[in-house]
């Protein structure tokens, strides 16, 4: 019985012809070089942690830091399918070549629901980590910025603040200042001009998503301030990491 077992193991490692895999040495070397080359190419790219940062690389909340993320994400698209607002999209160039088909958020198509963590629930390799909903709500995926050249109360002296209306943080991350401005016909009017509070903003993107300036939004989210990357920050007192990574 044991003899047969050892013979079987021996046959596994030294199978007789023609059952052998018969891989050519050249093929193996080529394969190895291709793998090595691609990995080194990506490592040396300027788009990596601590070098340049892609403002459009806004990853789902609770995503691992980028290098770890790329080592785990299997580009399966589960997070893209489950996202209830259709925000999660397959990256093309945002994360470099290596990031092809990894998840990025497109705030024009959707936004990150505050009371939701479905992407973390479905990720098979936990490149997006499952945390409690409360923990997820503390994670920042970026920061919102106003484009004052386009935002209605700044650019056109018109009332709006749809962004402030939708902001989901318990204390709103968008506050407003009542300012007296001049209208095109020369009269003065008071408008509420919105501003971001960066210590509260999680980068969820609902402001960008609901902004009425359909083509290029008056408020938009970029990746800076994301909790998972201590280098991609803007605030001195940012609590990036906050013990989650």
């Amino acid at each position, binding site marked *: 019985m044991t003899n047969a077992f050892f013979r079987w193991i021996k046959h596994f490692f030294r199978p007789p012809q023609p059952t052998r895999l018969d891989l050519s040495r050249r093929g193996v070397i080529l394969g190895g070089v291709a793998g090595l080359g691609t990995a080194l190419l990506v490592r040396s790219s300027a788009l990596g942690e601590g070098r340049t940062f892609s403002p459009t690389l806004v990853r789902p909340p609770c995503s691992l830091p980028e290098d770890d993320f790329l080592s785990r994400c299997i580009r399966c698209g589960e997070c893209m399918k489950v996202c209830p607002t259709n925000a999660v999209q397959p990256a093309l160039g945002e994360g470099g070549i290596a990031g092809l088909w990894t998840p990025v958020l497109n705030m024009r198509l959707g936004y990150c629901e505050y009371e939701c963590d479905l992407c973390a629930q479905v990720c098979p390799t936990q490149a997006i980590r499952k945390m409690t909903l409360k923990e997820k709500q503390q994670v920042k995926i970026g920061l919102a910025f106003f484009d004052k050249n386009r935002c209605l109360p700044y650019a056109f002296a018109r009332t709006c603040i749809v962004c402030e209306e939708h902001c989901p943080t318990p204390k709103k991350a968008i506050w407003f200042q009542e300012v007296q401005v001049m209208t095109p016909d020369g009269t003065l009017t008071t408008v*509420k001009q919105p501003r971001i509070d960066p210590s509260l903003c999680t980068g969820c993107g609902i402001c960008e998503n609901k902004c*009425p300036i359909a083509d290029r939004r008056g408020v938009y989210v970029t990746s800076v301030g994301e909790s998972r990357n201590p280098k991609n920050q803007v605030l001195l007192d940012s609590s990036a990491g906050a013990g989650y990574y």
Partner: protein
Amino acid sequence: MSELSRREFLAACAAAGAALKLGPYALDALAAPAGAALSIAHFRSSPQDPAAIADEARRLTREAVNGLGGMGRFVTRGDVVWVKPNIGWNRLPEQAATTNPDVVATVVRLCYEAGAKKVIVSDNSCNAAPASFARSGIQQAAQQAGADCFILDERRYRKSAVNGKTLKSWDVYGDVLGVNKLINVPIVKHHGLCKATLGMKNLMGIVGGERNRFHQDLNNTLADLAVFFRPTLVVMDAVRVLTANGPVGGNLADVKRRDTVAAGTDQVAIDAFGATLLGLKPQEIGYVVEAHSRGLGAMDFESLKPRRVEV
């Protein structure tokens, strides 16, 4: 009345009504016997137990509608009713961003008791609809009460002639245009732009399109909607109200109990009353003033001699 002939009927009424500036549901309401225009039910205590709060909400809703003469005054046998609560946000009922589910369920039950053939409960949510319908508790409560609670189909909006001061033509949800009665069931909340979101603001959930442009002229757009729709009845949920960081809220500290449900046929009066629950004067709410100035109702709700009942 078959679907098609009802449309023809409505079209004829609309033509006649347009001359009188009446909304699609106003004729049905006009046909109803006259009665009180505003009824306010207030709970004597403020229980903390969830089951007790649910019971409070149910009883207050019944008392408020009874104070107007009962649902039979508004809903008749065979009616198809659209109950329009606030299901706009992905929040729990305790966060007071959406209408209390027990208030909604009671309105549904009252409609069926009055002989309604079908009651529809739906809203054009701002947050993701499946999440909002579920987390607010309204989908479950409405379905348990026997309503058809479904998420709106994005392809069923129809360009309609609103013919308002600001809104000329806008996407209105097709099925809404085909029902007999519309019951608006808002919740009282703070709002950053217009100070308070009440009944007329809640009508935004029946329209589609780029609603995010309304805010450039909110007073007129909301008054236009109020004139166009003229709901048969407004049942205002003020069991819990959101006093700050509205209309989305999130912080339970911003939620205060008012233990009140109001019902009324005068959209302006009931919104004016709702504003006072947030410590505001009706004159501070721009769209209330605008609607009042268009003759849609009375801002001075006390002048309507509202029926008040302590429960």
